[in-house]
């Protein structure tokens, strides 16, 4: 895997991979949406609004996956000083934040018909709200430190601390929610039991995953290209 450390090899490989990833994500998401909108029956309790679940739940999975990827990239950056690790982590963060925001917004939309309010202090939504702030803090730290190498290492430390802490956060929010017997949109296992509901869910999940990787690779490539441009520029000035 350290073959990909060479930016040129990475650019070549990712360039070839990219169109396939993009096409795969488009197909999977389209299929998931079609199944979710038209082929899945209405839920006897929630009616049509349950269909938001097909957008919301996979988004939560990708939001968490993105943080995991950020944490792993951070380890590679700190421990093995892998040259692309910092770029990879930095590129993943805004995407993770986006999917988290998507999860929060769709979760809010799902809650509105049921509870009449756009925000519900559900354990899941609350955890993801905190995750959203963790992403923002990570991005802010990157932007706050001028030296790129140091910014990358500092952000890596933060990502790892966050990864450990987020486990405790999840636990504490769940604990808090049961304590307050708060509202829960997602408690009912009902909609998720029937297998017919699983198909669109997994299609969307895979579709999102491919979408994430597509966008992520695009961002990494952009970053590599802009660094090349800066180096050339610096040499041009000196020469």
């Amino acid at each position, binding site marked *: 895997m350290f073959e990909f450390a060479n930016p040129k090899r990475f650019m070549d490989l990712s360039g070839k991979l990219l169109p396939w990833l993009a096409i795969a994500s488009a197909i999977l998401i389209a299929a998931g949406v079609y199944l979710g909108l038209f082929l899945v029956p209405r839920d006897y309790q929630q009616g049509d609004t349950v269909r938001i679940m097909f957008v919301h739940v996979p988004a939560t999975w990708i939001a968490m996956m993105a943080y995991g990827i950020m944490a792993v990239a951070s380890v590679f950056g700190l421990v093995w000083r892998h040259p692309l690790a910092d770029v990879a982590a930095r590129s993943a963060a805004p995407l993770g934040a986006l999917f988290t925001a998507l999860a929060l917004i769709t979760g809010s939309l799902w809650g509105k018909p049921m509870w009449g309010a756009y925000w519900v202090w559900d354990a899941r939504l609350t955890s993801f709200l905190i995750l959203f702030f963790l992403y923002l803090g990570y991005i802010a730290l990157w932007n706050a430190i001028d030296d790129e190498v140091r910014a990358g290492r500092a952000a890596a430390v933060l990502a790892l601390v966050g990864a450990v802490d987020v486990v405790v956060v999840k636990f504490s929010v769940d604990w808090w929610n049961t304590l307050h017997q708060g509202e829960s949109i997602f408690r009912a296992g009902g909609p998720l039991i029937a297998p017919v509901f699983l198909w669109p869910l997994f299609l969307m999940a895979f579709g999102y995953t491919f979408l994430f990787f597509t966008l992520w690779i695009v961002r990494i490539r952009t970053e590599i290209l802009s660094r090349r441009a800066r180096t050339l520029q*610096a040499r041009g000035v000196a020469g």
Partner: protein
Amino acid sequence: MTALGGLRGERLTLARGEHQLFRDLSFDVSAGDVLSVEGPNGAGKTSLLRLIAGFLEQSAGSIALRSGSGETITDAEERAKFVGWLGHSDGIKPQLTPAENLKFFARYHRRGDMDSALDRMSLRRIRDLPAQYLSAGQKKRVAFARLMLVGRPLWLLDEPFSSLDAEGRALAAELITRHCGGGGIVVAATHEPLGVPCRHLQLGLA
């Protein structure tokens, strides 16, 4: 203070980000030597000092410290324990008096005679004045007093004579001479002559 054997840097290369500061830099000094590191601004004098102190890591090359007992130390963290540091900023807490500043370091390092250090740098008059009221030169003297108090054998000094008046320089030069006489080593990054016999290391030649 434990005497040293020597300090050798071999083919040191240091890069800061994309910018290379120096390449294949070598030096070799023994106990009692003063090494004057010279060069224009931005040449990497401070970075070399921080490299020797163990704050920075070199991209290539090695630094070996020989202790008085003949042991050779190549690990940066180990080497740091031998370093007496006088950096660009003086490290004096403005809310504390020179006496209080030195008393902390005496306790922190569990050694040192605060009073004789203050006397040696001619600070008795102002020892109980909060450092924020002192001039830059006076604070520098306190920093030198701290060097003497902590008693580490390898002195790394960054622009040691800046802001010192003639008397301060004389006192500092005397301190350096005594230190070297006792088997210590001094590496100083400086723009101006130190007034003591020294070896020279030039940085920043293309």
